C-alpha cells in the first residue's frame, strides 16, 4: 500500500486521500472570452513528469499541496497550502 505524508496527520494510507488535480490560477470569468473559459473548464496539461496538485485528506477534510512524478509514481513533496498561497484568494 502506498503511503502519503500528510502535513497535518503524518504518514497515512494513500486510499484516505483524494486528488483534486493541478494547482492552477483561477481566472476571472468576467474578463475571459467564451473560448478562454471553455479552455479553463476542459483542457488539461496532463503532464508526464513532475506535477503540483491539490490533495485532500478525506477523513479530516484537510487540503494541502502534493508534488509528485506521474511517470514514476513517486511522491516528492507534501506541504500546507499556505506555503504558496500567502494571502486569501477571493472569488
Amino acid at each position: 500500500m502506498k503511503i502519503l505524508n500528510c502535513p497535518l496527520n503524518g504518514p497515512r494510507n494513500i486510499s484516505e486521500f483524494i486528488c483534486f488535480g493541478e494547482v492552477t490560477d483561477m481566472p476571472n470569468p468576467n474578463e475571459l472570452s467564451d473560448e478562454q473559459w471553455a479552455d479553463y473548464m476542459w483542457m488539461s496539461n496532463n503532464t508526464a513528469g513532475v506535477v503540483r496538485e491539490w490533495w485532500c485528506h478525506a477523513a479530516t477534510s484537510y487540503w494541502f499541496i502534493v508534488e509528485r512524478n506521474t511517470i514514476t509514481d513517486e511522491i516528492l513533496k507534501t506541504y500546507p497550502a499556505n506555503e504558496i498561497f500567502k494571502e486569501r484568494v477571493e472569488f
Partner: protein
Amino acid sequence: MPLGLLKYGFASKYPARRDIPAPKDLNKSYDVVIIGAGGHGLSTAYHLARYHGITNVAVLDKGYIGGGNTARNTAVVRSNYISPEAVAFYKASVELFKNLANELGYNQMYSQRGQLTLAHSDASVRTFTLRAEVNKHLGVRSEMVDRKQIREIVPCLNMGKNMRFPIQAGLWHRDGGTARHDSIAWGYAMRAAQMGVEIHQRTEVTGVNINAGKVTAIETNRGTIQCNHAIQAVAGMSSVVAKMAGIQLPIRSYPLQAMVTQPVKPFLDPLVSSAGLHAYVSQTARGEIVIGGGSDPYELYSTRSTLDLKESLIAHTLELFPFFAELKLLRQWAGITDMTPDYSPIMGESPVKNYWLDAGWGTWGFKATPISGKCMAETIAQEKTAAMIQPFHLDRFKTFKLSNEAGATAASH
C-alpha cells in the same frame, strides 16, 4: 507421414510466411505519416491503402506493433452505448468485426457470445432501461432481463440475496463479443504492408514541424521525414504527442488494471460486467478468465500495478463468482487510459492543418479499432472530418456540445 511433412516444411515452394517485410530505411517523405502502430494506426493505414489508394504511408511506433494499449485492453466488443452518435459508431464497428477475418484473411477469433451487464441499484436499472431502448431504436440487440433470465444466461453467477449489493436486473446485449486483440493489429499490419504501407517499429517521434499552421514534417530518432498529412493514434500518450504539435487536449490519463487467471474448462459463455462493482469478466478461448476493473484514483503514466486496486477488484469479482477463489492468477498488468470529460473519443480535425487526431480512447478504444480506422482514412482522404465522427470533434469542448457517454465502462451509471 512425419517425413513427408518435414519435406513440405523445407520445400522452397512453401516459404515461411512473413507477416510484414524486414525493416528498411525511412524515406525522405510520405503522403501520410501515422504515429502509433497499434490497432487504430494500422487500421487507418489499411483503410487508406485498400479503399482510398493511398499507399505512400509510414506507420511509426516507438515500440513494436500492437505493444501498447492494443495488447493491454480486455478485448470486449460491444455497441450498447447510450448516446445515439456512439451507438451508431460502435454498431458500425461490430458490423466490421463480424467480417474482419474474411476481409483480412487472418483469424481474429471473433466470437459474438453476448454481453450481460448487471445492475445492483435502482439508478443502474433506470439508465440500463434507457440504454436498451436507445439501442433497440438504432437496431442494436439489447434488452432488459430480470433475475430469472439472468440465472438462465449465466447459471454460475452468485444471485444470492445476501450479497452486499444484490443483483437487481441486467442489460443483455446479444451483439456483444470478444476478439483476439493482437491479431487485429497483426491482420491490418500484414495486409497494409502488402499494399505498400511501410511499418517502422522502434522509431520514436520526437517532434512535429509546423509551417504556417500546417504540418510539414515529423522528427524521429531516425531522422526527419516530410509529410502532407500526419495522424496521431497513440492511446495512453495522446496529450504528450499532441503537445509536440502545440495542441492541448481535454484528456487526463489514468492507469486501468486487469489480470487473467490460469486456464480452466469452458464454463462462462457470455461476457459479464457489473456497473456497480466496476468489474468485468470473460473467459477466453484458451480458458483463462480475464478480469478488468475501473481506473486508478489519480492521474499517472506508470503501468505498474498496485496491490490495493487489485485486491478490491478481486473482492468485487468474488462477489459475482465466489468459486473464482479457487483459481490462481497467471498475469496482471495495467494500461493507460486517456479519459475525456464526456467519455467520448476525440477524432478528426485539430487546430493544425493536416494534423489529424485519433485520441481520447479511454476505456473504449479496442472495440472501435475497425471503424475508427475506416473513418480516419476517409477523413484524411477527403481532408475533411468524416460525417460519422463529426460529434467527436475537438471543437465540441469550445461550444459545450459534449457527447456525454454514460454507457462507457468507466462512467458511473
